[in-house]
């Protein structure tokens, strides 16, 4: 505990690689730039749109799991609710595209208040089980309310051909590339928002809660409220991903609310690396690429995904991007 140790001080300054810091500062523009060229480098545009939508879904999930430390197995509830409400607002209520999106995001946020308030009363492993069960509740409600949701067949009949903006400007959503950039615009906004949240004092608070709940409480954080707010932000982002998926597909399959959808987002996060900014998109890209390639020669691609996932949990628990960060940090220290 010497008060000054200049030699050590100089060593510390080098510890964070400069490339890492720059990457951090430019993370939003960088991600958007990569997303912008995605339709031209990936095998298909359909794949690119999916990376966008599921990437955003994973970003929202990662806010709760990676940064707040709460593993939810029920995030399909928010994705699916966002999608269903958007579709229902257009199909049943005649809303415009923007009003429908707003309905979807607000509805998903509202649902996340309810599910969040219930599930954060429990901790740890219990939390995973409760979120999964509550999401199943939403699934069965949607299944039963077939008059509104189309039940097992999913919701159909709400194609949005073009999106009008103020001032007469409009985007032709029947053109795949135009639709891609339309969706990307919202994803970019959401990314910018998430980046701000992570840089904000609240971003520090959720990390403190993740790292040590007891200590965070002793420091003066209201842990329950912090968790709930993070849960709601996460739910809203996943709801946004859902609304975009509805606009993209023009149908909402019942599967959007299923355990399968909740699982996909967990796997994508783990593959990419929980608790890192780029991890979710890396994870979504890798997952969808595996699906794309593997499904060419077998209909049982989920077996491959499952095995890869198990290998990741065993040997690469920090995921692809998370492991890269560790490597970079180590390299920076050895210099």
């Amino acid at each position: 505990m010497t008060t000054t140790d200049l030699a050590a001080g100089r060593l510390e300054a080098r510890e964070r690689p400069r490339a890492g810091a720059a990457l951090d500062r430019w993370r939003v523009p960088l991600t958007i730039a990569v997303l912008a060229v995605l339709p031209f480098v990936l095998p298909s545009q359909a794949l690119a749109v999916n990376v966008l939508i599921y990437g955003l879904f994973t970003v929202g999930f990662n806010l709760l799991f990676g940064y707040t430390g709460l593993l939810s197995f029920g995030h399909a509830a928010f994705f699916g609710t966002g999608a269903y409400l958007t579709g229902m607002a257009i199909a049943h209520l005649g809303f415009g595209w923007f009003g429908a999106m707003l309905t979807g995001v607000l509805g998903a946020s509202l649902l996340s208040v309810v599910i969040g308030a219930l599930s954060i009363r429990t901790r740890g492993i219990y939390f995973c089980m409760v979120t999964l069960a509550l999401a199943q509740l939403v699934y069965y409600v949607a299944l039963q309310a077939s008059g509104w949701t189309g039940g097992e067949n999913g919701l159909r009949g709400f194609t949005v051909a073009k999106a009008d903006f103020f001032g007469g400007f409009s985007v032709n959503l029947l053109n795949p590339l135009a639709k891609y950039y339309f969706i990307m615009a919202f994803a970019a906004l959401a990314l910018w928002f998430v980046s701000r949240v992570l840089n904000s004092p609240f971003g520090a608070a959720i990390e403190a809660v993740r790292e040590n709940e007891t200590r965070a409480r002793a420091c003066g954080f209201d842990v329950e409220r912090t968790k709930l707010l993070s849960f709601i932000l996460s739910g809203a982002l996943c709801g946004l991903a859902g609304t975009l998926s509805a606009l993209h597909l023009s149908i909402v399959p019942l599967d959007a609310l299923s355990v399968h959808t909740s699982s996909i987002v967990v796997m994508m996060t783990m593959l990419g690396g929980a608790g890192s900014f780029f991890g979710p998109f890396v994870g979504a890209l890798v997952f969808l690429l595996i699906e794309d390639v593997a499904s060419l020669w077998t209909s049982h691609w989920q077996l491959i995904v499952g095995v890869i996932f198990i290998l990741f949990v065993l040997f690469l628990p920090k995921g692809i991007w998370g492991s890269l960060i560790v490597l970079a940090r180590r390299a920076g220290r050895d210099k």
Partner: protein
Amino acid sequence: MDLELILMQLFSGLALGAILVMVALGLTIVFGMLGIVNFAHGALFMVGAYAGLWIAAQTGSFWWALLVAPIAIAILGMVIERFLIRPLYGRTPDDPLLLTFGLGYVLVESVRITFGTDGIPFSAPEALQGVVDLGVGYFPIYRLFVVGVVALVLLLLWVALEKTRFGLIVRAGARDPLIMKVLGVDVSRLWLLVFGLGVGLTALGGVLAAPMRNVSPEMGTLVLAEAFVVTVIGGMGSLLGAVVAGLLVGVAVSMTALFAPEMATIVMFGLMAFILLVRPQGLFGRPGV
């Protein structure tokens, strides 16, 4: 609504609940001892049902299936514990959970490859088909049989837990893992056995459930969610809670089906939400878990 119908439905709920008790008990025993939630639990229930199906087809006897399938799947469970879960002890509790979750995927897909994606009917042996008159009404024999088997298993389990050294260790360990060290117990062997037991119980549930519903690769998903509901209601880590809540959920689902069939599945999740509101630790759980 006449009394006989209500009684029958009540009884049918007990049979449904009995299956849930098997699944939830397996989950709870593993959680109590190893501190992990096995997300492949539902998939192993399903694998148990398929194993029963296969053995019954090979031997032509339901009884062999009932006896051999749970033991075979329990051994599979021990292999899983030994080679996949054991490397994860000492990491965060999320890691075994995630691993078993991935394993569930692999199991479901493997079954799809082996047995196809469609559901397969599985009929009870002739001796257990039909109904029996119990004076207050006619009850399906097979459901009576299920309740009987589960009651027997519970009795055996109770004897094993209360009257043997193994049981003493399990109970002590569930309450305070540190005591294991004090007693000088070989923890890794014990955990292997406990995991096998937990998996065996859910597999038995799978075999028993098979004649009551179609056997399909997806049958484990709903069961896993149901088992979670039961565990949350009963109280995490409480064996008594798992039994009481399992029967409660079974009866609640089946009674709701009588009055409002579309609400049948929904009601148990509602029940769970209610318990979370008024008693977050569950009916028999200790606060602070």
